[in-house]
């Protein structure tokens, strides 16, 4: 009996949006519009996608206009997150463009009377023997792209691509150095009004009474908007809106808030809450070995703020019962879904259009401010309203990356070899994004009259890399393990997706404990890791980083080196990091980070390096400095002074090597470095100062506390 070969699948984004014309359009002579559903968040995705399209279509990249995502026109690719844009959008576009090229070759073949196999495309011009020629644009009347993509289209082989693998310059950078408005913040709509929203200082407090008199007296005020506990102002200018808000704040009466946990004992808080427990993975030893002793360690990381350099901003404009929204959300369709619930309007009445904001490292307040703008714009008589959050709002009302407590118990035999491994996580969920549930996730939805309950964050399923449990299953070949995740069912501090979700915490824990065990055994930490890895790509990044950093550097007093490794989500990019730190007394400084990374095919190698450098520096900032501060009543880290991040003088040198694998499907790079860098710094601190700091951030106080514990 013969079996038909399985039908090849379309790339996921294409299966969901198969219509070719939703991705590619030949517009005016010589131009091609490429319309991905993923958005630019400072990661350079738009350029990498243009490279892919240019390759498959055989056109110069300069002819491509990359269209910003909008629910009016773009394919629905969900959310731009999880380092999946190259995987989703890139694969879809490669497939679509190969299909489109084939269709045009057929049309050209008919028109020119030449076998399609003899035709060639160069910069959009199709030519064949005898100097016959036509072009995509000449043929665009004959070729309809209103067809669905079919599975089985064969894209070019890696070797035939000329743009992919090149570090071409990013298409958005000239605008940004020549001050051409590109950010949503800089976009001037005609008749634009300005809105500001009133939010409580005390966490969980609700607006119960409001004296609007003083605000109404502010010159330039257009409207005071009140909807239950949601209140805000619309004014002619930002200055007037701010003045009115200030006046409104004086007239506000708030209910008592909801108490926040004790920031000094996050682990105690996390480990004492009601939880939903999941066994993430177990491995049972084929031949159980006898453990003689066990090492049990607890690691914590605090709540971490996205802290984009720009406060969140959105614009909205109503036209009777239709509304147009401009947003820097990571997911225009998902935002639209939530807006539709709150507004009780069909999605067809809402257009959500993306415009670039500042770098976004996960689910920040971009979506929240969009609903704010929509609610305020109702009072604007059809004029557009722009709402911008304050720095204070951004630092205390936007969702944070979830705090984590992680306990690992490693069972060891008499030679300190690992025979069992128990990894348990206590954390709030790492995702409460809009558009995923029957209730909205937007902040104002929990404030309006008839409010929706605040959504308790959950974790994405394991198939999507998990959430709090992301990277908790070791890539190492230990004989047995149990991995357990306890997700909190209470959420006094609002959490949602922050770059890497739980991976940074889990990799920090795993790689720190491995280092400790290697040290117990007197074994080189890289050799120890290599001995437990079976995956050659994993070993390659470790060896490459080791070679590049001159591992193992001579021991010098006051200098320490440490290593960290992970494959992001266990399915994405491989990354190894080696940190060199300098320790004087109880103060540390990260001097250098050396990283090796394997993302498969690196479409734009410099773009990958840029992402890895950025990730490494951001992770260093998290590790050394960052921690959302609060007392029992309110978030207190509401400015850059109270929430310091790494400065230019504190930034380490970062050296990155890419292992290029053009034949392997590309994966994203934006989140690969955080876990490995965190662990590498922690391990370097031990190498330098002889203490294991297991609580992030590794501030001076924490180091002193760890030293006291050791002595």
């Amino acid at each position, binding site marked *: 009996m013969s079996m038909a070969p399985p039908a090849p699948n379309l790339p996921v984004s294409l299966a969901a949006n198969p219509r070719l014309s939703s991705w590619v359009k030949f517009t005016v002579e010589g131009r091609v519009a490429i319309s991905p559903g993923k958005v630019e*968040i*400072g*990661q*350079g995705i738009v350029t990498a996608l243009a490279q892919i399209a240019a390759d498959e279509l055989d056109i110069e990249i300069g002819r491509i206009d990359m269209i910003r995502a909008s629910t009016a026109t773009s394919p629905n690719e969900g959310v731009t997150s999880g380092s999946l844009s190259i995987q989703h959008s890139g694969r879809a576009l490669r497939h679509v463009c190969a299909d489109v090229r084939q269709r045009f070759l057929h049309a050209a073949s008919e028109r020119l009377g030449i076998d399609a196999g003899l035709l060639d495309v160069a910069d959009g011009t199709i030519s064949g023997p005898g100097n016959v020629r036509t072009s995509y644009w000449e043929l665009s009347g004959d070729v309809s792209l209103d067809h669905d993509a079919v599975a089985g289209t064969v894209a070019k082989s890696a070797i035939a691509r000329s743009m992919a693998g090149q570090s071409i*310059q*990013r298409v*958005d*950078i*000239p605008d*940004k*150095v*020549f*001050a051409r*408005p*590109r*950010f949503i*913040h*800089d976009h*001037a709509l005609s008749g634009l009004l300005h809105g500001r929203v009133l939010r409580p200082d005390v966490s969980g407090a609700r607006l119960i009474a409001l004296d609007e008199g003083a605000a109404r007296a502010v010159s330039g005020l257009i409207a005071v908007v009140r909807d239950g506990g949601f209140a805000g102002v619309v004014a002619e*200018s*930002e*200055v007037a809106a701010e003045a009115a808000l200030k006046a409104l704040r004086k007239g506000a009466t708030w209910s008592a808030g909801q108490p926040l946990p004790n920031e000094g004992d996050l682990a105690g808080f996390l480990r004492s809450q009601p939880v939903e427990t999941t066994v993430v993975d177990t491995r049972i030893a084929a031949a159980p070995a006898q453990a003689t002793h066990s090492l049990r360690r607890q690691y914590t990381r605090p709540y971490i703020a996205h*802290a*984009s*350099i*720009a*406060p969140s901003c959105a614009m909205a404009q109503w036209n009777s019962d239709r509304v147009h929204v401009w947003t820097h959300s990571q997911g225009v369709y998902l935002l639209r879904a939530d807006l539709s619930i709150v507004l009780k309007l069909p999605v067809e009445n809402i257009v959500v259009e993306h415009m*670039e*904001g*500042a*770098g*976004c*490292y996960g689910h920040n307040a971009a979506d929240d401010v969009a609903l704010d703008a929509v609610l305020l714009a109702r009072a604007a008589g059809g004029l557009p309203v722009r709402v*911008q959050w*304050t*720095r204070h709002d951004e630092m205390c009302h936007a969702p944070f990356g979830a705090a984590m407590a992680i306990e690992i118990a490693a069972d060891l035999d008499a030679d300190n070899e690992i025979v069992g491994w128990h990894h348990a996580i206590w954390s709030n969920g790492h995702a409460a994004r809009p558009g995923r549930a029957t209730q909205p996730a937007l902040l104002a939805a929990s404030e309006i009259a008839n409010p929706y309950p605040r959504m308790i964050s959950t974790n994405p399923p394991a198939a999507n890399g998990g959430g709090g449990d992301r990277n908790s299953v070791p890539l190492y070949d230990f004989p047995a393990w149990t991995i357990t995740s306890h997700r909190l069912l209470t959420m006094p501090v609002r959490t949602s997706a922050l770059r890497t979700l739980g991976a940074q915490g889990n990799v920090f824990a795993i790689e720190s404990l491995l280092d400790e065990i290697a040290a117990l055994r007197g074994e080189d930490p890289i050799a120890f890791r290599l001995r437990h890895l079976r995956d050659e790509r994993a070993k390659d990044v470790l060896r490459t980083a080791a070679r590049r950093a001159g591992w193992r550097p001579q021991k010098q007093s006051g200098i320490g080196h440490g290593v960290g490794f992970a494959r992001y989500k266990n399915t994405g990019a491989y990354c190894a990091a080696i940190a060199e730190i300098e320790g004087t007394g109880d103060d540390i400084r990260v001097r250098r980070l050396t990283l090796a990374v394997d993302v498969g095919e690196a479409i734009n190698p*410099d*773009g990958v390096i*840029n*992402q890895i*450098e*950025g*990730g*490494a*520096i*951001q992770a260093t*900032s998290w590790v050394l400095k960052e921690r959302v501060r609060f007392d029992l009543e309110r978030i207190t880290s509401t*400015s*850059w*002074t109270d929430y310091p*991040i*790494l*400065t*230019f*003088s504190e*930034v380490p*040198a*970062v050296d990155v090597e890419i292992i290029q694998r053009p034949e392997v499907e590309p994966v994203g790079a934006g989140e690969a470095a955080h876990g490995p860098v965190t662990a590498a710094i922690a391990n370097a601190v031990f190498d330098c100062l002889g203490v294991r700091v297991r609580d992030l951030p590794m501030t001076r106080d924490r180091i002193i506390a760890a030293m006291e514990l050791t002595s």
Partner: protein
Amino acid sequence: MPVIQFQLNGATVAVDTDPDQTLLDVLRSRLGITSPHFGCGAGECGACRVVVDDHAMASCDMPMWSVADKTVVTVEGLGTAEQPHPLQRAFISEQAMQCGYCVSGILASAAALLKRNPSPTEAEVRAALDRNLCRCGSHNRMVRAVLRAASEMSSS
């Protein structure tokens, strides 16, 4: 309201404004200058920095009365795509950003630095940029770009 006059990117401008209004607000909302960005409004992030009489200053907490008769340069006045300032060229060559929201303020700090110190060391560049925050972690590329611009300027 008084009329306050100052030099902006080589031209004289006069604005009728509340003297306590900030330079950032006047630039953005009155004069169509969008390169200085709002980040914190408290002089802490540098996104709004512009060059005032050869010094890089936060424009978000600079009242208009203090700008009278001063010379203000923003990225709009630094150069154009046709005639870029060496810093602009260098930021492109080094691909020195991720999101780029912080970049105008950083260009302002760097331009002021190169004016007073045409051949800075790496440490001097970092020190000059210490009041500019970059959340994306593009610092090292930016430092390389400033050094590249400096060497280009000194060799021309």
